[in-house]
């Protein structure tokens, strides 16, 4: 859970609000990988993610003077990213294609990656590439709101409280969506285990 407890970005934000473009660049460099992961796992498409991420930072740049610090910059920029992505997904509808299905081959030597894939038997037994592809498909079967919660909790590692602030819903709603989404993903992957061809 690597979100900041106090707003460590405040000095950079204050400089950016005063018109220091270099300070805003530092914020872009700091948050672009994390926001990329968030948007990509909601859209499952690289080109869309690239466009969305540019739009998110452009909007943040225009709005940063109005940022009053009621939440941390981390929460604020994630809220912009999630809301813009949800709006985009509503417009896009069900027209999508997965563009980053496969895990990068070089990552398979990563220590954390090896640890993750060797701990649980169903994951170890299955063809990892195929499993990932199925998982992405299962993710896209979830509603946009459920996918957002799954992405933030499981992939980004955010706590329930932070997710509830970003989405503007109660923690109970977050837990409920997460429970439902996990159940859906489980059912879909179990189906795949039973019928690998389908």
């Amino acid at each position: 859970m690597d979100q900041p407890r106090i707003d460590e970005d405040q000095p950079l934000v204050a400089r950016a609000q005063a018109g220091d473009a270099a300070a805003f660049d530092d914020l872009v460099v700091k948050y672009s990988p994390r926001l990329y992961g968030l948007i990509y796992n909601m859209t499952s498409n690289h080109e869309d993610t690239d466009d969305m991420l540019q739009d998110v930072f452009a909007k943040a740049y225009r709005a940063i003077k109005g940022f009053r610090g009621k939440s941390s910059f981390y929460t604020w920029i994630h809220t912009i990213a999630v809301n813009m992505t949800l709006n985009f997904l509503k417009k896009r509808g069900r027209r999508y294609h997965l563009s980053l299905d496969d895990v990068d081959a070089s990552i398979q030597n990563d220590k954390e990656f090896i640890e993750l894939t060797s701990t649980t038997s169903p994951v170890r037994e299955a063809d990892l590439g195929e499993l990932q592809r199925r998982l992405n498909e299962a993710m896209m079967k979830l509603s946009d709101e459920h996918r957002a919660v799954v992405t933030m909790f499981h992939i980004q590692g955010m706590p329930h409280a932070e997710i509830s602030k970003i989405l503007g819903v109660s923690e109970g709603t977050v837990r409920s969506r997460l429970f439902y989404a996990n159940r859906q993903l489980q059912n879909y992957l179990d189906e795949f285990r039973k019928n690998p061809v389908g």
Partner: protein
Amino acid sequence: MDNFDENDIGTLLRLKKFEQPPPGYFENFLHEFHRRQRDELLRQPVWSVLWQRFADSLSRLNIPSLTSYPAAVAAALVCAAVVSLKVYQAPQSPEIAMSDSSELLPRISVLDQMPAERVADRFTLRSPLATRSLGPDLSRSQMNESAYTHRATPPRYVLDRLPVSYEPSFNF
């Protein structure tokens, strides 16, 4: 064969963080961001750019925080209205005083221009000022003439800057 439980789902989903964009993507991202910002600025019409700058200058003045206090704004407007009313209704007293004093000066200086012996002749103990003629320079006809001159226009009154009641009562 085990079924997937919640932990397995979590493990699989955490693997997705290894899905990354092509190498060098984040290095180029900032350059692309700057390029798009420039393009967007060039595409904006002039009035939009000017309006944005005007809004920026207002935000530096923190106008919204001022307008969030309607009572203070209303009080400021009332004060401004009262002050402006007073300015428009104020009499032109300084100009009247100056014009009157300039008219009086030549008559006072008549005595200064008289030879000393004549002045002494006119103002003696035997002939008090009240019973003596003021002479040709300050004759009744001239006084009347000056009085008629003043009566040609409506009478004007020169008031002191402070009312009498404002003067200290014990002025030694």
